[in-house]
Protein backbone atom coordinates (compact mmCIF):
# COMPACT_ATOMS: atom_id res chain seq x y z
CA UNK A 1 0.00 0.00 0.00
CA UNK A 2 1.30 3.44 -0.81
CA UNK A 3 1.49 6.37 1.53
CA UNK A 4 -1.06 8.12 -0.64
CA UNK A 5 -3.65 5.42 -0.13
CA UNK A 6 -2.94 5.41 3.50
CA UNK A 7 -3.64 9.09 3.98
CA UNK A 8 -6.77 8.82 1.90
CA UNK A 9 -8.18 6.13 4.12
CA UNK A 10 -7.27 7.90 7.30
CA UNK A 11 -9.80 10.54 6.44
CA UNK A 12 -12.44 7.87 6.96
CA UNK A 13 -11.20 6.75 10.32
CA UNK A 14 -13.79 7.52 13.01
CA UNK A 15 -11.87 6.11 15.94
CA UNK A 16 -8.11 5.90 16.27
CA UNK A 17 -6.47 4.37 19.31
CA UNK A 18 -2.74 4.71 19.70
CA UNK A 19 -0.43 3.18 22.29
CA UNK A 20 -3.25 2.70 24.78
CA UNK A 21 -2.10 1.66 28.25
CA UNK A 22 -4.44 0.93 31.16
CA UNK A 23 -3.14 0.04 34.61
CA UNK A 24 -5.20 -1.26 37.50
CA UNK A 25 -3.90 -0.87 41.02
CA UNK A 26 -3.87 -4.16 42.93
CA UNK A 27 -2.77 -4.93 46.49
CA UNK A 28 0.45 -6.40 45.12
CA UNK A 29 1.27 -3.51 42.84
CA UNK A 30 0.15 -2.21 39.48
CA UNK A 31 -1.40 -4.61 36.99
CA UNK A 32 -1.05 -3.53 33.37
CA UNK A 33 -4.31 -4.76 31.81
CA UNK A 34 -3.77 -3.10 28.44
CA UNK A 35 -0.23 -2.68 27.21
CA UNK A 36 0.38 -0.50 24.18
CA UNK A 37 -2.65 -1.32 22.06
CA UNK A 38 -3.30 0.55 18.82
CA UNK A 39 -6.14 0.11 16.39
CA UNK A 40 -8.45 2.13 14.22
CA UNK A 41 -12.03 1.82 13.07
CA UNK A 42 -13.29 3.18 9.78
CA UNK A 43 -16.72 4.58 9.09
CA UNK A 44 -19.36 1.94 8.44
CA UNK A 45 -17.01 -0.93 9.10
CA UNK A 46 -16.47 -3.47 11.85
CA UNK A 47 -13.27 -4.28 13.67
CA UNK A 48 -13.32 -7.32 15.93
CA UNK A 49 -11.23 -7.55 19.07
CA UNK A 50 -10.52 -11.16 19.92
CA UNK A 51 -8.93 -12.92 22.84
CA UNK A 52 -9.52 -15.16 25.81
CA UNK A 53 -10.72 -14.07 29.23
CA UNK A 54 -8.28 -11.81 31.01
CA UNK A 55 -6.53 -10.67 27.83
CA UNK A 56 -7.65 -7.09 28.34
CA UNK A 57 -10.20 -6.79 25.55
CA UNK A 58 -13.01 -5.64 27.84
CA UNK A 59 -10.68 -3.14 29.48
CA UNK A 60 -10.01 -1.66 26.04
CA UNK A 61 -13.78 -1.33 25.58
CA UNK A 62 -14.21 0.32 28.95
CA UNK A 63 -11.37 2.74 28.23
CA UNK A 64 -12.84 3.69 24.85
CA UNK A 65 -16.13 4.76 26.40
CA UNK A 66 -14.12 6.22 29.28
CA UNK A 67 -15.59 4.02 32.00
CA UNK A 68 -11.94 3.75 33.02
CA UNK A 69 -9.30 6.41 32.48
CA UNK A 70 -6.32 5.23 30.45
CA UNK A 71 -2.88 5.52 31.99
CA UNK A 72 -1.44 6.76 28.71
CA UNK A 73 -1.99 6.71 24.98
CA UNK A 74 -4.56 8.44 22.85
CA UNK A 75 -8.15 7.77 21.83
CA UNK A 76 -9.00 10.06 18.95
CA UNK A 77 -12.72 10.42 18.33
CA UNK A 78 -14.09 13.17 16.10
CA UNK A 79 -10.65 14.76 15.94
CA UNK A 80 -10.47 15.04 19.73
CA UNK A 81 -8.24 12.98 21.97
CA UNK A 82 -10.62 11.85 24.71
CA UNK A 83 -8.12 9.71 26.60
CA UNK A 84 -7.40 12.26 29.33
CA UNK A 85 -10.27 14.68 28.78
CA UNK A 86 -11.93 15.88 32.01
CA UNK A 87 -15.52 14.73 32.45
CA UNK A 88 -17.00 18.14 31.74
CA UNK A 89 -15.37 18.40 28.33
CA UNK A 90 -15.93 14.74 27.62
CA UNK A 91 -19.67 14.79 28.18
CA UNK A 92 -20.70 16.35 24.83
CA UNK A 93 -18.58 13.72 23.05
CA UNK A 94 -19.93 10.74 24.95
CA UNK A 95 -22.85 10.38 22.58
CA UNK A 96 -20.44 9.67 19.71
CA UNK A 97 -19.24 6.42 21.18
CA UNK A 98 -21.70 4.09 22.83
CA UNK A 99 -21.59 0.63 24.26
CA UNK A 100 -23.74 -2.50 24.10
CA UNK A 101 -23.04 -4.56 27.19
CA UNK A 102 -22.52 -8.26 27.52
CA UNK A 103 -25.18 -9.04 30.06
CA UNK A 104 -28.68 -8.23 28.78
CA UNK A 105 -30.06 -8.95 32.24
CA UNK A 106 -27.92 -6.54 34.24
CA UNK A 107 -27.61 -3.62 31.85
CA UNK A 108 -31.22 -2.38 31.74
CA UNK A 109 -32.93 -0.44 34.54
CA UNK A 110 -35.68 -2.77 35.82
CA UNK A 111 -37.86 0.18 36.88
CA UNK A 112 -38.20 1.69 33.42
CA UNK A 113 -40.21 0.60 30.41
CA UNK A 114 -38.48 -0.25 27.15
CA UNK A 115 -39.53 3.09 25.70
CA UNK A 116 -38.15 5.02 28.69
CA UNK A 117 -34.87 3.12 28.52
CA UNK A 118 -34.39 3.96 24.87
CA UNK A 119 -35.57 7.56 25.32
CA UNK A 120 -33.20 8.35 28.19
CA UNK A 121 -30.15 9.24 26.08
CA UNK A 122 -32.38 11.58 24.04
CA UNK A 123 -33.30 13.44 27.19
CA UNK A 124 -29.64 14.33 27.61
CA UNK A 125 -29.67 15.75 24.10
CA UNK A 126 -32.54 18.03 25.12
CA UNK A 127 -35.14 16.48 22.85
CA UNK A 128 -38.76 17.24 23.81
CA UNK A 129 -40.88 14.56 25.45
CA UNK A 130 -43.14 14.04 22.45
CA UNK A 131 -40.15 13.83 20.08
CA UNK A 132 -38.38 11.49 22.48
CA UNK A 133 -41.23 9.05 22.58
CA UNK A 134 -41.58 9.13 18.83
CA UNK A 135 -37.86 8.56 18.29
CA UNK A 136 -37.76 5.78 20.90
CA UNK A 137 -40.68 4.04 19.22
CA UNK A 138 -38.89 4.34 15.90
CA UNK A 139 -35.70 2.83 17.33
CA UNK A 140 -37.58 -0.02 18.97
CA UNK A 141 -39.18 -0.72 15.63
CA UNK A 142 -35.74 -0.53 13.97
CA UNK A 143 -34.36 -3.29 16.19
CA UNK A 144 -37.29 -5.50 15.30
CA UNK A 145 -39.43 -5.36 18.42
CA UNK A 146 -43.23 -5.00 18.16
CA UNK A 147 -44.90 -1.75 19.25
CA UNK A 148 -46.48 -3.69 22.13
CA UNK A 149 -42.96 -3.82 23.61
CA UNK A 150 -42.91 -0.08 24.32
CA UNK A 151 -44.61 -0.12 27.69
CA UNK A 152 -43.19 -3.36 29.02
CA UNK A 153 -40.38 -3.59 31.56
CA UNK A 154 -37.09 -5.46 31.03
CA UNK A 155 -38.31 -8.39 33.14
CA UNK A 156 -40.94 -9.15 30.53
CA UNK A 157 -38.42 -9.68 27.75
CA UNK A 158 -36.21 -12.60 26.81
CA UNK A 159 -32.41 -12.28 26.65
CA UNK A 160 -32.40 -11.64 22.90
CA UNK A 161 -35.15 -9.03 23.17
CA UNK A 162 -33.30 -7.29 25.98
CA UNK A 163 -30.17 -7.15 23.89
CA UNK A 164 -32.21 -5.50 21.15
CA UNK A 165 -33.36 -2.87 23.66
CA UNK A 166 -29.72 -2.34 24.67
CA UNK A 167 -28.80 -1.82 21.01
CA UNK A 168 -31.70 0.59 20.50
CA UNK A 169 -30.61 2.59 23.55
CA UNK A 170 -27.03 2.73 22.29
CA UNK A 171 -28.22 3.92 18.88
CA UNK A 172 -30.48 6.60 20.39
CA UNK A 173 -27.63 9.05 20.81
CA UNK A 174 -26.65 8.51 17.16
CA UNK A 175 -23.13 7.29 17.86
CA UNK A 176 -20.42 7.03 15.25
CA UNK A 177 -18.93 4.05 16.98
CA UNK A 178 -20.73 1.28 18.82
CA UNK A 179 -18.59 -0.81 21.13
CA UNK A 180 -20.20 -4.25 21.48
CA UNK A 181 -18.60 -6.04 24.40
CA UNK A 182 -19.47 -9.74 23.98
CA UNK A 183 -22.90 -8.52 22.97
CA UNK A 184 -24.08 -11.95 21.81
CA UNK A 185 -22.16 -14.21 24.19
CA UNK A 186 -24.99 -14.59 26.68
CA UNK A 187 -27.48 -15.52 23.98
CA UNK A 188 -28.60 -18.87 22.61
CA UNK A 189 -27.09 -19.68 19.25
CA UNK A 190 -30.32 -19.10 17.28
CA UNK A 191 -30.90 -15.76 19.04
CA UNK A 192 -27.27 -14.82 18.50
CA UNK A 193 -27.75 -15.34 14.77
CA UNK A 194 -30.71 -12.93 14.81
CA UNK A 195 -28.81 -10.25 16.74
CA UNK A 196 -25.80 -10.51 14.41
CA UNK A 197 -28.10 -10.10 11.42
CA UNK A 198 -29.71 -7.08 13.08
CA UNK A 199 -26.31 -5.47 13.71
CA UNK A 200 -25.31 -5.96 10.07
CA UNK A 201 -28.60 -4.43 8.85
CA UNK A 202 -28.30 -1.45 11.19
CA UNK A 203 -24.80 -0.80 9.92
CA UNK A 204 -26.03 -0.71 6.34
CA UNK A 205 -28.86 1.63 7.24
CA UNK A 206 -27.05 4.05 9.55
CA UNK A 207 -23.38 3.74 8.61
CA UNK A 208 -22.41 3.17 12.24
CA UNK A 209 -19.02 1.56 12.93
CA UNK A 210 -18.60 -1.34 15.32
CA UNK A 211 -15.80 -2.39 17.57
CA UNK A 212 -16.97 -5.92 18.22
CA UNK A 213 -15.40 -7.67 21.17
CA UNK A 214 -15.73 -11.43 21.24
CA UNK A 215 -14.00 -14.67 22.05
CA UNK A 216 -16.01 -16.53 19.41
CA UNK A 217 -14.12 -16.70 16.11
CA UNK A 218 -17.19 -17.88 14.21
CA UNK A 219 -19.06 -14.75 15.26
CA UNK A 220 -16.04 -12.59 14.45
CA UNK A 221 -15.79 -14.07 10.99
CA UNK A 222 -19.43 -13.36 10.35
CA UNK A 223 -19.52 -9.74 11.46
CA UNK A 224 -16.11 -8.13 10.97
CA UNK A 225 -13.85 -7.07 8.14
CA UNK A 226 -10.76 -6.59 10.30
CA UNK A 227 -9.62 -8.33 13.43
CA UNK A 228 -7.20 -7.59 16.25
CA UNK A 229 -6.05 -10.54 18.36
CA UNK A 230 -5.08 -9.74 21.93
CA UNK A 231 -3.22 -11.72 24.53
CA UNK A 232 -2.03 -10.59 27.94
CA UNK A 233 -2.87 -7.00 27.26
CA UNK A 234 -1.01 -6.83 23.98
CA UNK A 235 -1.86 -7.15 20.30
CA UNK A 236 -0.39 -10.37 18.90
CA UNK A 237 -1.86 -10.20 15.42
CA UNK A 238 -3.99 -7.85 13.36
CA UNK A 239 -5.29 -7.77 9.81
CA UNK A 240 -8.25 -8.53 7.54
CA UNK A 241 -10.52 -11.06 9.24
CA UNK A 242 -10.56 -13.50 6.31
CA UNK A 243 -6.80 -13.58 6.15
CA UNK A 244 -6.10 -13.78 9.88
CA UNK A 245 -8.62 -16.56 10.38
CA UNK A 246 -7.74 -18.59 7.32
CA UNK A 247 -3.98 -18.19 7.66
CA UNK A 248 -3.21 -17.22 11.21
CA UNK A 249 0.43 -16.21 11.40
CA UNK A 250 0.87 -16.19 15.15
CA UNK A 251 0.87 -19.48 17.09
CA UNK A 252 -1.60 -18.03 19.56
CA UNK A 253 -4.11 -17.12 16.85
CA UNK A 254 -3.59 -20.55 15.35
CA UNK A 255 -4.34 -22.21 18.69
CA UNK A 256 -7.48 -20.09 19.11
CA UNK A 257 -8.53 -20.97 15.59
CA UNK A 258 -7.92 -24.67 16.07
CA UNK A 259 -9.76 -24.76 19.39
CA UNK A 260 -12.96 -23.35 17.89
CA UNK A 261 -15.01 -26.49 17.37
CA UNK A 262 -16.99 -26.19 14.17
CA UNK A 263 -19.30 -29.21 13.94
CA UNK A 264 -19.45 -29.00 10.15
CA UNK A 265 -15.73 -29.68 9.76
CA UNK A 266 -15.31 -32.45 12.33
CA UNK A 267 -15.07 -36.00 11.03
CA UNK A 268 -15.03 -39.38 12.74
CA UNK A 269 -16.31 -40.60 16.09
CA UNK A 270 -14.94 -38.87 19.20
CA UNK A 271 -11.87 -37.54 17.38
CA UNK A 272 -9.39 -36.57 20.05
CA UNK A 273 -7.09 -35.23 17.37
CA UNK A 274 -9.18 -32.07 16.96
CA UNK A 275 -8.65 -31.35 20.64
CA UNK A 276 -4.89 -31.61 20.52
CA UNK A 277 -4.45 -27.86 20.35
CA UNK A 278 -3.24 -27.90 23.86
CA UNK A 279 -1.68 -30.84 25.60
CA UNK A 280 -1.36 -29.50 29.09
CA UNK A 281 -3.18 -27.45 31.64
CA UNK A 282 -3.48 -23.78 30.87
Amino acid at each position, binding site marked *: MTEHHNTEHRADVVLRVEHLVVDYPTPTGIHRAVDDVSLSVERGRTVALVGESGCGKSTVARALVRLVKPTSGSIVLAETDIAQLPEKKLRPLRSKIQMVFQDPYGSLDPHLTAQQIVAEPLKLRGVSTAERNKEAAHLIDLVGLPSTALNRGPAEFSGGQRQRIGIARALASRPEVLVCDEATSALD*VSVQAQVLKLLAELQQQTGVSYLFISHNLGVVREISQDVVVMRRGQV*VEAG*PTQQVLSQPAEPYTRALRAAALDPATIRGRKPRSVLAVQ*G*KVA
Partner: protein
Amino acid sequence: MKLLEVEDLQIELMTEAGVVRAVDGVSFCVGEGETVTLIGESGSGKSTTAMGVLRLLPAGLAVLSGRVELAGKDVIADPDSIVDVRGRSVSLIPQDPMTALNPVFTVGRQLAGAVRTRHPELSRSQARDRAAELLDSVHIPDPSAQLRKYPHQLSGGMLQRILIAIALAGEPRLLVADEPTSALDVTVQAGVLDLLLELQERTRIGILMITHDLGVARVVSDRIHVMKAGRFTESGEVEDIVERPQTEYTRKLLAAIPQLDAPSTTAPETPAGQNVPKQESPTPAPPAEAPAASPAEPTATTLKPEDARRPAGATGLSAVPGTATTATTAARPEGARP
Protein backbone atom coordinates in the same frame (compact mmCIF):
# COMPACT_ATOMS: atom_id res chain seq x y z
CA MET B 1 -24.28 -53.11 29.97
CA LYS B 2 -26.47 -50.09 30.62
CA LEU B 3 -25.24 -47.72 33.30
CA LEU B 4 -28.26 -45.48 33.07
CA GLU B 5 -31.70 -46.21 31.69
CA VAL B 6 -34.33 -43.50 31.56
CA GLU B 7 -37.83 -44.30 30.44
CA ASP B 8 -40.59 -41.77 29.91
CA LEU B 9 -39.17 -39.34 32.46
CA GLN B 10 -41.42 -36.43 33.28
CA ILE B 11 -40.44 -33.60 35.58
CA GLU B 12 -42.91 -31.00 36.75
CA LEU B 13 -41.66 -27.93 38.56
CA MET B 14 -43.76 -25.92 40.96
CA THR B 15 -43.19 -22.27 40.13
CA GLU B 16 -44.89 -19.05 41.13
CA ALA B 17 -46.65 -19.04 37.80
CA GLY B 18 -47.97 -22.54 38.32
CA VAL B 19 -46.86 -26.01 37.36
CA VAL B 20 -44.38 -26.19 34.51
CA ARG B 21 -43.69 -29.46 32.77
CA ALA B 22 -39.96 -28.94 32.22
CA VAL B 23 -39.30 -32.47 31.01
CA ASP B 24 -42.06 -34.15 29.09
CA GLY B 25 -41.49 -37.85 28.61
CA VAL B 26 -37.90 -38.49 27.57
CA SER B 27 -36.27 -41.91 27.24
CA PHE B 28 -32.59 -42.64 26.74
CA CYS B 29 -29.79 -44.81 28.03
CA VAL B 30 -26.05 -44.63 28.54
CA GLY B 31 -23.84 -47.70 28.28
CA GLU B 32 -20.26 -48.41 29.27
CA GLY B 33 -17.69 -46.40 27.33
CA GLU B 34 -20.43 -44.31 25.72
CA THR B 35 -21.04 -40.59 25.65
CA VAL B 36 -24.65 -39.57 25.25
CA THR B 37 -25.33 -35.87 24.85
CA LEU B 38 -28.46 -33.87 25.53
CA ILE B 39 -28.27 -30.70 23.49
CA GLY B 40 -30.64 -27.77 23.50
CA GLU B 41 -31.02 -24.06 24.04
CA SER B 42 -31.66 -22.45 27.40
CA GLY B 43 -34.93 -23.54 28.93
CA SER B 44 -35.12 -26.72 26.86
CA GLY B 45 -35.00 -28.92 29.97
CA LYS B 46 -31.62 -30.53 29.38
CA SER B 47 -30.10 -29.57 32.74
CA THR B 48 -33.37 -30.33 34.53
CA THR B 49 -33.21 -33.83 33.04
CA ALA B 50 -29.67 -34.33 34.32
CA MET B 51 -30.44 -32.96 37.76
CA GLY B 52 -33.60 -35.04 37.90
CA VAL B 53 -31.67 -38.20 37.07
CA LEU B 54 -29.31 -37.43 39.95
CA ARG B 55 -32.25 -36.46 42.21
CA LEU B 56 -30.67 -33.09 42.82
CA LEU B 57 -33.88 -31.11 42.28
CA PRO B 58 -35.54 -29.75 45.44
CA ALA B 59 -37.89 -32.47 46.64
CA GLY B 60 -40.86 -30.24 47.39
CA LEU B 61 -40.70 -28.32 44.13
CA ALA B 62 -40.07 -31.00 41.53
CA VAL B 63 -42.30 -33.97 40.84
CA LEU B 64 -40.68 -36.79 38.90
CA SER B 65 -42.39 -39.69 37.22
CA GLY B 66 -41.28 -42.45 34.89
CA ARG B 67 -38.35 -44.78 35.43
CA VAL B 68 -34.70 -43.87 36.02
CA GLU B 69 -32.44 -46.83 36.64
CA LEU B 70 -28.95 -45.95 37.86
CA ALA B 71 -26.61 -48.88 38.43
CA GLY B 72 -29.64 -51.16 38.68
CA LYS B 73 -31.53 -49.01 41.19
CA ASP B 74 -34.75 -47.23 40.30
CA VAL B 75 -34.17 -43.85 41.90
CA ILE B 76 -37.69 -42.65 41.14
CA ALA B 77 -39.57 -45.52 42.71
CA ASP B 78 -37.12 -45.54 45.61
CA PRO B 79 -35.73 -42.02 46.10
CA ASP B 80 -33.60 -43.06 49.10
CA SER B 81 -31.55 -45.41 46.94
CA ILE B 82 -29.85 -42.42 45.28
CA VAL B 83 -27.55 -41.99 48.27
CA ASP B 84 -26.06 -45.43 47.55
CA VAL B 85 -25.17 -44.51 43.98
CA ARG B 86 -24.55 -40.76 43.90
CA GLY B 87 -20.86 -40.02 44.38
CA ARG B 88 -20.15 -43.75 43.96
CA SER B 89 -21.61 -45.25 40.79
CA VAL B 90 -22.38 -41.85 39.35
CA SER B 91 -20.76 -38.44 39.81
CA LEU B 92 -21.56 -34.94 38.65
CA ILE B 93 -19.18 -32.50 37.00
CA PRO B 94 -20.80 -29.13 37.59
CA GLN B 95 -20.96 -26.22 35.19
CA ASP B 96 -19.11 -23.41 36.88
CA PRO B 97 -15.79 -24.53 38.36
CA MET B 98 -15.24 -21.13 39.99
CA THR B 99 -18.13 -21.51 42.41
CA ALA B 100 -18.39 -25.27 42.83
CA LEU B 101 -15.62 -25.60 45.41
CA ASN B 102 -15.67 -24.33 48.96
CA PRO B 103 -13.47 -21.23 49.03
CA VAL B 104 -12.33 -21.62 52.65
CA PHE B 105 -10.84 -25.12 52.38
CA THR B 106 -7.81 -26.22 50.42
CA VAL B 107 -8.29 -28.23 47.27
CA GLY B 108 -6.52 -31.14 48.98
CA ARG B 109 -8.93 -31.19 51.90
CA GLN B 110 -11.96 -31.22 49.59
CA LEU B 111 -10.50 -33.90 47.36
CA ALA B 112 -9.36 -36.06 50.27
CA GLY B 113 -12.83 -35.68 51.74
CA ALA B 114 -14.34 -37.11 48.57
CA VAL B 115 -11.82 -39.98 48.67
CA ARG B 116 -12.69 -40.85 52.24
CA THR B 117 -16.41 -40.74 51.54
CA ARG B 118 -15.82 -43.63 49.16
CA HIS B 119 -13.17 -45.36 51.29
CA PRO B 120 -13.74 -44.50 54.95
CA GLU B 121 -11.11 -47.07 55.92
CA LEU B 122 -8.29 -44.93 54.51
CA SER B 123 -6.13 -42.89 56.86
CA ARG B 124 -5.64 -39.18 56.24
CA SER B 125 -2.25 -39.62 54.71
CA GLN B 126 -3.47 -42.48 52.53
CA ALA B 127 -6.38 -40.30 51.38
CA ARG B 128 -3.94 -37.52 50.57
CA ASP B 129 -1.79 -39.88 48.54
CA ARG B 130 -4.87 -41.05 46.65
CA ALA B 131 -5.85 -37.39 46.08
CA ALA B 132 -2.43 -36.69 44.57
CA GLU B 133 -2.84 -39.73 42.30
CA LEU B 134 -6.21 -38.43 41.15
CA LEU B 135 -4.75 -35.00 40.36
CA ASP B 136 -2.03 -36.71 38.39
CA SER B 137 -4.65 -38.65 36.43
CA VAL B 138 -6.30 -35.39 35.35
CA HIS B 139 -2.88 -34.06 34.26
CA ILE B 140 -2.34 -31.47 36.94
CA PRO B 141 1.38 -30.89 37.28
CA ASP B 142 3.03 -31.11 40.69
CA PRO B 143 -0.05 -32.53 42.46
CA SER B 144 1.21 -32.36 46.04
CA ALA B 145 1.86 -28.60 45.73
CA GLN B 146 -1.60 -28.01 44.20
CA LEU B 147 -3.28 -29.88 47.06
CA ARG B 148 -2.20 -27.16 49.46
CA LYS B 149 -3.79 -24.40 47.40
CA TYR B 150 -7.15 -22.72 47.84
CA PRO B 151 -9.60 -22.53 44.93
CA HIS B 152 -8.99 -18.83 44.28
CA GLN B 153 -5.32 -19.55 43.61
CA LEU B 154 -6.13 -21.70 40.59
CA SER B 155 -7.35 -20.93 37.07
CA GLY B 156 -10.76 -22.01 35.75
CA GLY B 157 -9.32 -24.83 33.65
CA MET B 158 -7.32 -26.10 36.60
CA LEU B 159 -10.40 -25.98 38.88
CA GLN B 160 -12.47 -27.90 36.34
CA ARG B 161 -9.78 -30.61 36.31
CA ILE B 162 -9.90 -30.71 40.11
CA LEU B 163 -13.69 -31.09 39.99
CA ILE B 164 -13.26 -33.95 37.55
CA ALA B 165 -10.76 -35.49 40.00
CA ILE B 166 -13.31 -35.08 42.82
CA ALA B 167 -15.94 -36.72 40.63
CA LEU B 168 -13.53 -39.60 39.95
CA ALA B 169 -12.76 -40.02 43.67
CA GLY B 170 -16.01 -41.94 44.04
CA GLU B 171 -14.81 -44.39 41.36
CA PRO B 172 -17.99 -43.90 39.35
CA ARG B 173 -19.06 -45.85 36.28
CA LEU B 174 -21.01 -42.87 34.97
CA LEU B 175 -20.20 -39.17 34.85
CA VAL B 176 -22.90 -36.57 34.42
CA ALA B 177 -21.24 -33.49 32.95
CA ASP B 178 -23.49 -30.41 33.02
CA GLU B 179 -22.00 -27.90 30.58
CA PRO B 180 -18.52 -28.75 31.90
CA THR B 181 -16.69 -26.36 29.59
CA SER B 182 -19.17 -23.53 29.07
CA ALA B 183 -17.40 -21.27 31.58
CA LEU B 184 -13.96 -21.93 30.10
CA ASP B 185 -11.90 -20.35 27.33
CA VAL B 186 -11.79 -22.28 24.06
CA THR B 187 -8.19 -23.44 24.34
CA VAL B 188 -8.82 -24.56 27.92
CA GLN B 189 -12.06 -26.21 26.81
CA ALA B 190 -10.17 -28.34 24.33
CA GLY B 191 -7.88 -29.66 27.08
CA VAL B 192 -10.78 -30.54 29.39
CA LEU B 193 -12.75 -32.30 26.65
CA ASP B 194 -9.64 -34.23 25.67
CA LEU B 195 -9.23 -35.30 29.29
CA LEU B 196 -12.82 -36.63 29.39
CA LEU B 197 -12.28 -38.62 26.19
CA GLU B 198 -8.97 -39.95 27.49
CA LEU B 199 -10.58 -41.06 30.78
CA GLN B 200 -13.26 -42.79 28.78
CA GLU B 201 -10.75 -44.60 26.57
CA ARG B 202 -8.84 -45.71 29.64
CA THR B 203 -11.64 -46.66 32.01
CA ARG B 204 -14.69 -47.20 29.75
CA ILE B 205 -16.61 -44.77 31.93
CA GLY B 206 -20.00 -43.67 30.61
CA ILE B 207 -20.70 -39.96 30.18
CA LEU B 208 -24.01 -38.13 30.08
CA MET B 209 -23.08 -34.77 28.59
CA ILE B 210 -25.27 -31.69 28.78
CA THR B 211 -24.35 -28.88 26.41
CA HIS B 212 -25.75 -26.14 24.24
CA ASP B 213 -22.70 -26.24 21.98
CA LEU B 214 -23.01 -28.42 18.89
CA GLY B 215 -19.25 -28.29 18.37
CA VAL B 216 -18.65 -29.78 21.80
CA ALA B 217 -21.41 -32.34 21.21
CA ARG B 218 -19.91 -33.32 17.86
CA VAL B 219 -16.50 -34.04 19.38
CA VAL B 220 -17.41 -36.01 22.50
CA SER B 221 -20.63 -37.86 21.66
CA ASP B 222 -21.62 -41.29 20.42
CA ARG B 223 -25.29 -40.40 20.42
CA ILE B 224 -27.10 -37.06 20.59
CA HIS B 225 -30.60 -36.19 21.72
CA VAL B 226 -31.75 -32.75 20.58
CA MET B 227 -34.04 -31.28 23.18
CA LYS B 228 -36.65 -28.56 22.90
CA ALA B 229 -39.48 -27.64 25.26
CA GLY B 230 -38.91 -30.70 27.41
CA ARG B 231 -38.97 -33.26 24.62
CA PHE B 232 -36.47 -34.89 22.30
CA THR B 233 -37.10 -33.54 18.84
CA GLU B 234 -34.45 -35.72 17.28
CA SER B 235 -32.22 -38.55 18.46
CA GLY B 236 -29.49 -40.45 16.71
CA GLU B 237 -25.87 -41.28 16.14
CA VAL B 238 -23.62 -38.21 16.25
CA GLU B 239 -22.75 -38.27 12.53
CA ASP B 240 -26.42 -38.56 11.53
CA ILE B 241 -27.51 -35.62 13.68
CA VAL B 242 -24.77 -33.27 12.48
CA GLU B 243 -24.42 -34.35 8.87
CA ARG B 244 -27.92 -35.56 8.07
CA PRO B 245 -30.34 -33.81 10.43
CA GLN B 246 -33.91 -35.02 9.91
CA THR B 247 -35.86 -32.28 11.64
CA GLU B 248 -36.23 -28.61 10.87
CA TYR B 249 -35.22 -27.60 14.41
CA THR B 250 -31.87 -29.40 14.26
CA ARG B 251 -31.21 -27.92 10.83
CA LYS B 252 -31.94 -24.45 12.19
CA LEU B 253 -29.67 -25.00 15.17
CA LEU B 254 -26.85 -26.07 12.88
CA ALA B 255 -27.47 -23.18 10.51
CA ALA B 256 -27.35 -20.66 13.36
CA ILE B 257 -23.75 -21.53 14.21
CA PRO B 258 -21.45 -18.91 12.73
CA GLN B 259 -19.26 -20.79 10.30
CA LEU B 260 -15.51 -20.52 10.36
CA ASP B 261 -14.87 -21.97 6.93
CA ALA B 262 -17.86 -21.34 4.71
CA PRO B 263 -18.16 -18.03 2.87
CA SER B 264 -19.38 -15.29 5.12
CA THR B 265 -22.85 -13.96 4.45
CA THR B 266 -22.99 -10.63 6.26
CA ALA B 267 -19.49 -9.19 6.31
CA PRO B 268 -18.38 -7.94 2.94
CA GLU B 269 -14.95 -8.85 1.71
CA THR B 270 -12.25 -6.36 2.58
CA PRO B 271 -11.38 -4.40 -0.53
CA ALA B 272 -7.71 -4.64 -1.34
CA GLY B 273 -5.60 -1.93 0.16
CA GLN B 274 -8.08 -0.99 2.81
CA ASN B 275 -7.16 -0.43 6.38
CA VAL B 276 -4.58 -3.16 6.69
CA PRO B 277 -1.72 -3.74 4.30
CA LYS B 278 -1.72 -6.91 2.31
CA GLN B 279 0.96 -9.35 3.18
CA GLU B 280 3.59 -9.01 0.55
CA SER B 281 5.34 -12.31 1.00
CA PRO B 282 3.61 -14.14 3.76
CA THR B 283 5.11 -17.20 5.25
CA PRO B 284 2.71 -19.81 3.98
CA ALA B 285 0.94 -20.68 7.19
CA PRO B 286 -0.48 -24.16 7.30
CA PRO B 287 -4.24 -24.17 7.09
CA ALA B 288 -5.66 -24.25 10.57
CA GLU B 289 -7.96 -27.13 9.76
CA ALA B 290 -5.03 -29.30 8.68
CA PRO B 291 -4.86 -32.66 10.42
CA ALA B 292 -4.07 -31.91 14.01
CA ALA B 293 -1.06 -33.12 15.90
CA SER B 294 -1.33 -36.76 16.79
CA PRO B 295 -2.43 -37.33 20.37
CA ALA B 296 0.93 -38.94 21.02
CA GLU B 297 2.64 -35.59 20.82
CA PRO B 298 0.08 -33.19 22.11
CA THR B 299 2.64 -30.68 23.31
CA ALA B 300 3.48 -29.72 19.76
CA THR B 301 1.10 -26.82 19.92
CA THR B 302 1.12 -26.20 23.62
CA LEU B 303 0.88 -22.51 24.23
CA LYS B 304 3.86 -20.94 25.84
CA PRO B 305 4.16 -17.31 26.72
CA GLU B 306 7.12 -16.88 24.42
CA ASP B 307 5.12 -18.22 21.48
CA ALA B 308 2.89 -15.21 21.53
CA ARG B 309 5.84 -13.00 20.79
CA ARG B 310 4.55 -9.56 20.22
CA PRO B 311 5.58 -7.98 16.99
CA ALA B 312 7.99 -5.30 18.06
CA GLY B 313 6.28 -1.97 17.61
CA ALA B 314 3.42 -3.49 15.67
CA THR B 315 0.39 -2.23 17.39
CA GLY B 316 -2.74 -2.20 15.43
CA LEU B 317 -4.47 -1.80 12.19
CA SER B 318 -3.79 1.20 10.06
CA ALA B 319 -1.86 3.08 12.69
CA VAL B 320 1.45 1.41 11.92
CA PRO B 321 0.89 -0.30 8.60
CA GLY B 322 4.47 -1.20 7.89
CA THR B 323 5.09 -3.03 11.11
CA ALA B 324 1.92 -5.06 10.81
CA THR B 325 3.33 -6.57 7.65
CA THR B 326 6.61 -7.27 9.35
CA ALA B 327 4.79 -8.92 12.18
CA THR B 328 2.83 -11.30 10.05
CA THR B 329 5.69 -12.27 7.79
CA ALA B 330 7.99 -12.75 10.74
CA ALA B 331 5.80 -15.50 12.17
CA ARG B 332 8.00 -18.43 12.85
CA PRO B 333 7.17 -21.85 11.53
CA GLU B 334 8.16 -23.59 14.77
CA GLY B 335 5.32 -23.92 17.19
CA ALA B 336 3.19 -24.22 14.13
CA ARG B 337 1.01 -27.18 13.56
CA PRO B 338 2.81 -29.95 11.77
